[in-house]
């Protein structure tokens, strides 16, 4: 048998179900490996002892009907976990211990999973490189100088380095799909309303969605099946009959119409990305799908719209961090002074920048010109997708305009950092599902991803398309384990 850490999530599940591997063996292996991988700076909080205890408990009376029986899993530190420190990678929450559990993580534990620890991310999920975390950069296992992407950078890095069999992230503008693309892994952002937002540290409430990050498409289907549920505690949770995504996974995509949006062929797009996209089309044709050229005319307005809507919502959501009820406090001469000093010392530069943008676009005299304008453009972007989905079943695009960049390369120029999310942001604005799958390597040998965008609540369809493509792409990436310590 191959090593435990080399098994996919689904393989590990069947091995535990067949009693070939115990939860304790799997959990111990992942803990050992995580302990040797501190150089990557993926963990903010480790719950190893508790995980081993839970694994032994599981083994003593294993419930093998669970979907994730005794599976150890590290998760993004944006999900509130009861009695386990939850920081959102911010100084302002660096001592916060939730008294409740997020619905998505509760779903994981209910189905047998065991928490290994909390993973680093960009502060309040604001970033595309994991450089904004109060706890320092996450390093990509691909190269020591490389960012893992963001904001779910710790999740992507831990997954690619095999410190967890699978993980979960959150995606507001690309925070699952972009790091998945950068690290050669699979990342799925579900339809808005599919996974409950309850207990996830809020960034932009009309855009945030949790989703799976996995080693292959089958694992993503399995994990989504567990994560997605209707939840009364989230007023935007949608009550629909959730398919058995992994059971219904199929490679039959014959006759599916796949749109190729011309607006995604952006200025200065590299030949490598062009070729990747072209290869993707050919794989789909090989699977019997039909390729159709389409237009999404408002694409170029998606990013500036996002950078009004997301900061506006963030500035309201982050108003709660005032140093009174929880988190970090700086003393002040009076109440207002305490608020101002607390927030100044507690938030990092990117978070402050976004709060300021949001406050400005919502402020008296600027609301109509910016916020209302952006909401109108958001409607146009959504209409583009609505119209085109009358003609096609799904859309194929690159996941990112380039492969992973070096640490420090973009951190001084906010706009160039924001441009990273050019292909992912429109999907959030329209509330659609999107999946990034590894599809090739650039000339530096770094992974590149392709994104499949689907209709609302049509996750099964994009999973099937991704599953079919995965087979044809046959992505192989040999990671040298340079970061491991003994």
């Amino acid at each position, binding site marked *: 048998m191959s090593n435990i850490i080399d098994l996919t999530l689904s393989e590990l599940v069947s091995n535990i179900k067949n009693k070939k591997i115990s939860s304790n063996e799997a959990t111990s292996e992942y803990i050992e490996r995580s302990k040797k991988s501190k150089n990557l700076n993926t963990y903010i909080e480790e719950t190893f002892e508790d995980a081993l205890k839970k694994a032994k408990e599981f083994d003593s009376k294993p419930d093998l009907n669970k979907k994730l029986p005794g599976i150890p899993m590290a998760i993004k530190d944006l999900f509130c976990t009861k009695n386990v420190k939850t920081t959102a990678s911010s100084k302002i929450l660096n001592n916060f211990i939730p008294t409740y559990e997020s619905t998505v993580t509760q779903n994981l534990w209910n189905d047998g999973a065991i928490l290994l620890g909390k993973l680093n991310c960009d502060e309040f999920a604001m970033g595309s490189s994991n450089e904004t975390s109060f706890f320092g950069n996450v390093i990509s296992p691909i190269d020591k100088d490389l960012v893992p992407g963001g904001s779910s950078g710790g999740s992507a890095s831990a997954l690619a380095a095999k410190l967890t069999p699978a993980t979960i992230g959150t995606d507001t503008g690309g925070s699952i799909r972009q790091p998945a693309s950068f690290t050669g892994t699979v990342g799925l952002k579900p339809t808005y309303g599919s996974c409950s937002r309850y207990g996830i540290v809020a960034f932009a409430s009309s855009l945030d969605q949790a989703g799976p990050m996995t080693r292959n498409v089958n694992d993503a289907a399995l994990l989504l099946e567990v994560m997605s549920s209707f939840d009364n505690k989230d007023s935007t949770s949608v009550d629909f009959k959730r398919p058995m995504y992994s059971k219904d996974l199929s490679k039959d995509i014959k006759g599916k119409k796949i749109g190729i949006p011309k607006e995604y062929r952006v200025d200065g797009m590299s030949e490598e990305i062009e070729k990747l996209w072209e290869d993707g089309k050919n794989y789909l044709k090989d699977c019997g799908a039909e390729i159709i050229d389409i237009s999404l005319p408002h694409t170029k307005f998606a990013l500036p719209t996002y950078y009004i809507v997301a900061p506006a919502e963030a500035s309201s959501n982050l108003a709660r961090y005032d140093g009174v009820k929880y988190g970090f406090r700086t003393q002040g001469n009076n109440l207002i002074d*305490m608020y101002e000093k607390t927030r100044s010392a507690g938030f990092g530069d990117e978070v402050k920048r976004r709060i300021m943008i949001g406050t400005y676009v919502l402020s008296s005299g600027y609301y109509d010109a910016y916020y209302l*304008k952006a909401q109108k453009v958001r409607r146009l972007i959504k209409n583009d997708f609505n119209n085109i989905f009358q003609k096609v079943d799904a859309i194929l695009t690159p996941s990112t305009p380039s492969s992973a960049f070096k640490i420090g390369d973009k951190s001084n120029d906010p706009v160039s950092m924001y441009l990273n999310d050019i292909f992912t942001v429109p999907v959030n604005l329209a509330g659609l599902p999107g999946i990034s799958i590894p599809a090739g390597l650039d000339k530096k040998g770094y992974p590149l991803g392709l994104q499949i965008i689907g209709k609302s609540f049509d996750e099964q369809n994009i999973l099937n398309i991704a599953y079919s493509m995965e087979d044809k792409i046959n992505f192989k990436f040999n990671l040298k384990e340079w970061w491991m310590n003994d």
Partner: protein
Amino acid sequence: MSIDLKTVKHISKLSRISLDEEKAKKLETDLNSIFKWIEQLNELKTDNIEPLSSIAETKLRLRKDEIKSKNMREEILKNSPNENKDFFVVPKVVE
């Protein structure tokens, strides 16, 4: 339209984030470059477009107004930054 230092300081007040002079100047530069880029939205005519505030364009669900969670007073107060077992403590507000 450009954002001057005075506006930056005004926004920082509204945001309840204190800024020193150096940070304020840095933000002036950043915000101007970001808003210059955002201005491209003005190329679009949107007069008769209905604004979209949420993707989930459904009616909010109604529920009975009843208490479901248990009393967690002590647990919640434990997260309070100033130690006091009974209250959240803030600087004196009323003279």
